[in-house]
């Protein structure tokens, strides 16, 4: 009897080890969240200097694309009530920015640097003299009311960003998705980014809600 016992190797069973590890694994899966740090990045203007009055902006009205939102979440775009979708708003802003109604010297240079697909897009829209002179001058102004919901504010801001991103992507010959995933820490990609934005700055003015 004793002999047969001795022959059996002394072994700790490690079969349940996997179960213990599984338990720990599930615990970590449940208690942790993968942080999603994505969103729309804006830069606030510097705080007003009390000794200096705010600079008076002299801009031709035709160079400003005004979007107003009221407390009922209704939009007023270019002084007219707006009923369309956000996609249509994006398209309108794109047309406004790429209007080249009366481009200045720099405006002409920007126009010449655009790929032919964008040039034909501009010309097919007829270069309305009543709309913006060139992308350097064009400003999109957005003013919300204190009662406007945050959801509408974000969707309008998103529509404006989308209009600019579509222009940049087209100019760089990328899809919008590719454009958004450009890694600015790499030199080659940063150059594409800078080239696409050259002359067409994202001129968005977000006014303080009243």
């Amino acid at each position, binding site marked *: 009897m004793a002999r047969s016992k001795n022959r059996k190797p002394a072994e700790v069973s490690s079969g349940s*080890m*996997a179960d213990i590890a599984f338990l720990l694994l599930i615990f970590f899966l449940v208690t942790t*969240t993968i942080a999603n740090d994505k969103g729309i990045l804006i830069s606030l203007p510097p*705080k007003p200097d009390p000794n200096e009055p705010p600079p008076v902006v002299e801009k031709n009205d035709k160079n400003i694309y005004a979007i107003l939102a009221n407390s009922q979440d209704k939009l007023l775009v270019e002084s007219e009530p707006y009923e369309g979708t956000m996609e249509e708003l994006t398209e309108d802003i794109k047309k406004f920015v790429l209007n080249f109604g009366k481009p200045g010297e720099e405006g002409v240079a920007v126009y010449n640097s655009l790929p032919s697909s964008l040039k034909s897009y501009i010309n097919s829209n007829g270069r309305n003299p009543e709309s913006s002179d060139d992308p350097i001058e064009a400003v999109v102004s957005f003013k919300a009311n204190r009662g406007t919901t945050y959801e509408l504010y974000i*969707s309008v801001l998103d529509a404006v*960003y989308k209009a600019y991103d579509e222009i940049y992507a087209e100019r760089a010959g990328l899809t919008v998705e590719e454009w958004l995933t450009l890694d600015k820490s790499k030199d080659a990609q940063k150059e594409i980014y800078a080239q696409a934005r050259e002359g067409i700055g994202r001129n968005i003015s977000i006014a303080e809600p009243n």
Partner: protein
Amino acid sequence: MSKFKKSSSTSNDIPTAALPDIIFMLLFFFMVTTVMRETDILVKQQLPRATQLTKIERKSLVSYIYIGEPKNPNLYGTEPRIQTNDVFIEPTDIIQFVNQEKDKLSEVERDQITMSLKGDIEIKMGIVSDVQQQLREANARKVLYSSIKRLDD
């Protein structure tokens, strides 16, 4: 013949000794890649949806401000409130909060601090604007409107 007989008598169990190691590897992967939730969020958080999202490259520069209706209306009422870390604060306390967050960063990085605004979709722009005014005062001018990717297009 005897050769075949011998091989048939061996046990053909799959060795499971390496299984714990594999599971441990998975465990470590999840432990390393996930971040523990640091604060209890006391406000409703249904983030708005948007398409043109920017990703934050350096997490250490980000501080969070949560705005929304309190989850516990009996205790805190139904008006949207601002939460930082674990407490509700008034808009005027934001400057102090930003300065605390800036103190955690090294001198050269202080200007690059990004405030991630996690706003519930139901809040009004009034409170968001109040927060932004305070952020301007505190000179933390990079603001990220935290949102979720919209999938419909």
